[in-house]
């Protein structure tokens, strides 16, 4: 399968993520959009890693990207735990998950 397919898919996912982050106000949806962007990046990393392995003479070529993907997943998992905790706290304080209520530091 040509690499282009992967690239376009990743780009589409990433763009959807960005637009979601920018346009939505619900904190949980923004959060999911961020995850979407991370996964778009993961997908690209894996795709390029495979391509690299296929075109290189060195046996281990591209394996570092695979490892990198695992790291991203782990960090994302940690982020989810912290992020969800923040959203819970936010709901307790404002009885809403709308990010536009998070402006109390202004003035």
């Amino acid at each position, binding site marked *: 399968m040509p690499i282009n397919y992967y690239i376009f898919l990743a780009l589409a996912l990433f763009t959807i993520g*960005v637009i979601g*982050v*920018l*346009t939505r*106000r619900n904190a949980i949806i923004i959060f999911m959009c961020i995850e979407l962007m991370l996964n778009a990046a993961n997908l690209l990393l894996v795709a390029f890693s495979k391509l690299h392995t296929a075109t290189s003479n060195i046996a281990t070529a591209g394996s570092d990207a695979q490892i990198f993907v695992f790291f991203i997943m782990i960090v994302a998992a940690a982020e989810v735990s912290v992020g969800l905790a923040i959203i819970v706290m936010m709901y307790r304080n404002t009885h809403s998950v709308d*990010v*536009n209520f*998070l*402006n109390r*530091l*202004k003035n």
Partner: protein
Amino acid sequence: MSNTLQIVWLIPFLPLIGFLINGLGRKQLSKSLTGIIGSGVILASFLISIFVFFQVKNGNSHVAHYFDFINTGSLKVGFDFQIDQLSSLFLLIITGVGFLIHVYSTSYMHEEESKDFAKYFAYLNLFVFSMLLLVMGGNYIIMFIGWEGVGLCSYLLIGFWFKDNNNNDAAKKAFIMNRIGDFGFLLAVFWLIAKLGTTNYHDVFDQVSKLSSFDITGITLLLFLGATGKSAQIPLYTWLPDAMAGPTPVSALIHAATMVTAGIYMIARSNILFTMAPLTQSVVAVIGLATAVVAATIALKQNDIKKVLAYSTVSQLGYMFLGLGVGAYTGAVFHVMTHAFFKALLFLGAGSVIHAMGGEQDMRNMGGLKKYMSITHITFLLGCLAIAGMPPFSGFFSKDEILAAAFEKNPVYWGVGVLTAFMTAFYMFRLYGLTFLGKFRGTHDQEHHLHESPSAITIPLIILAILAVVGGWIGIPEVFMHGGHRLEAFLEPIFAQSNTLVTSLNEKHALSQTTEYALMAVSVAGALIALLYAWNKFSKYEKSIEEETGFAKVISNKWYVDEFYNAIVVKPIQSIAGFFSNVVEKKGIDGFVNGVGKAVNYGSRQIRLLQTGQVSAYMLMMVVAILILFIIQLFL
């Protein structure tokens, strides 16, 4: 170290000690103690100077090296004192006349408060110290230290009565004009260092042949610029008449006898440089002559007794420069000496008169003082005769020597010089007639107050009068008496190098005896006529309120030189300064600084609005920023 002249450091050191004691203890010391310390240190210096003089006379010249003053790379400047014929002669004049003036001051300044009195003596001692440094220095740097020191003391003493702002202005004027000259002096010294790498007199004069004629002319012209500032020559002479704002003994010591002759000393010291630069010599002679004649014309119409003497000093200094310019170095130094005697005498006499008149300086309000102040009158008359060049008083011999040398060089110089001598005789006897002859024209109170001054004033007058009479006898011209010019023989080693040079160029052709007698006869006869005319005219002087007209008005306004300087120097500088302070400072510099502040203030006020508090707005900005970074990274 074995040379006995190694002790000469005591000569300037004692006045320095006097300065420190009087200056630091001015609140504790009583007036009489201050006077004793102030005069005593000068007396001690004078006694050592006499000893030194006789050592030198017996052929013991010495350069005393004490320590390295500047020692960098190839340039070594030692703290040296050079004791030879020229400096020992100046030492005698400075400490001798200085001592008499110190004694005089103890009485003249007696009405000052005790701490002002001590301050006065401290300044006076500091002045003597600086002047001694100036003449004793073994190189141009030490001379320059003294040169600056006397300028400072002159400033301090002119502005001694600083509560009157006019005195402060006069002091500042003197200081600034001196600075202009000092700048020339300093440049000349740098030039010497650049070309020869030394400032020691001996080394400079030995290597003088290494200098190109351009260098020599440049150096000597710059040195002469220094001399015009210090010795009040055209174009920098206007400070000296204003300097009369200081106490009268100060005028006598600094602005007649010693400091103003520093320029002559410096040129006489560097005589070989000037002899090798004929162009500079002509400049010196012409400037000197012009100063002599201009100042003499101004003196004809002055009514302030001290102003007349001040212009007379400027005029006599012009004579000395004429002497230097025509190569009569001995004559110039001789005239410095006799002038120190009779001009100090005249100033001190004027001070005695002012003292008796209760501070009055306008001669139109004097007259008839002869019968109240006999000692002052007689000594003053002797001083006037000496400056008018009457034989056998001292001024005759020194002036005649300069005029004879001028005639040898160029009869026009002689003509103008003799004319000046006539004017000198006239204004001096105008001064004498207005002050001492005729009827008293002051107020009744003043007349009641008139008295002869105390002995601390009259004794210095008597001593100076004796010197003014006999001082010329050490330089009797060759035509009167063979070997009579003992001063010339004494100073011969100093000017030997120049004399050899002049003889080798075969420029000197001695005047015949008849010419010399004729020249003397003309100058004496002319001066005598001017003298008698003035005596006759001003002994019958009546106060009148006639307006001056025509030429008389021009010279009584001092040729409008001060106004001219105001218009071409002071006013433009003031307007430039005004422009800088009002426009460049306020609009430019302040505007820039304030503008930066305002811009930061305004900018931050605008940028603050970006902080909306909306999370989505922050994220939008983040995305936009990342996109911009990508664009920069990928396409630029």
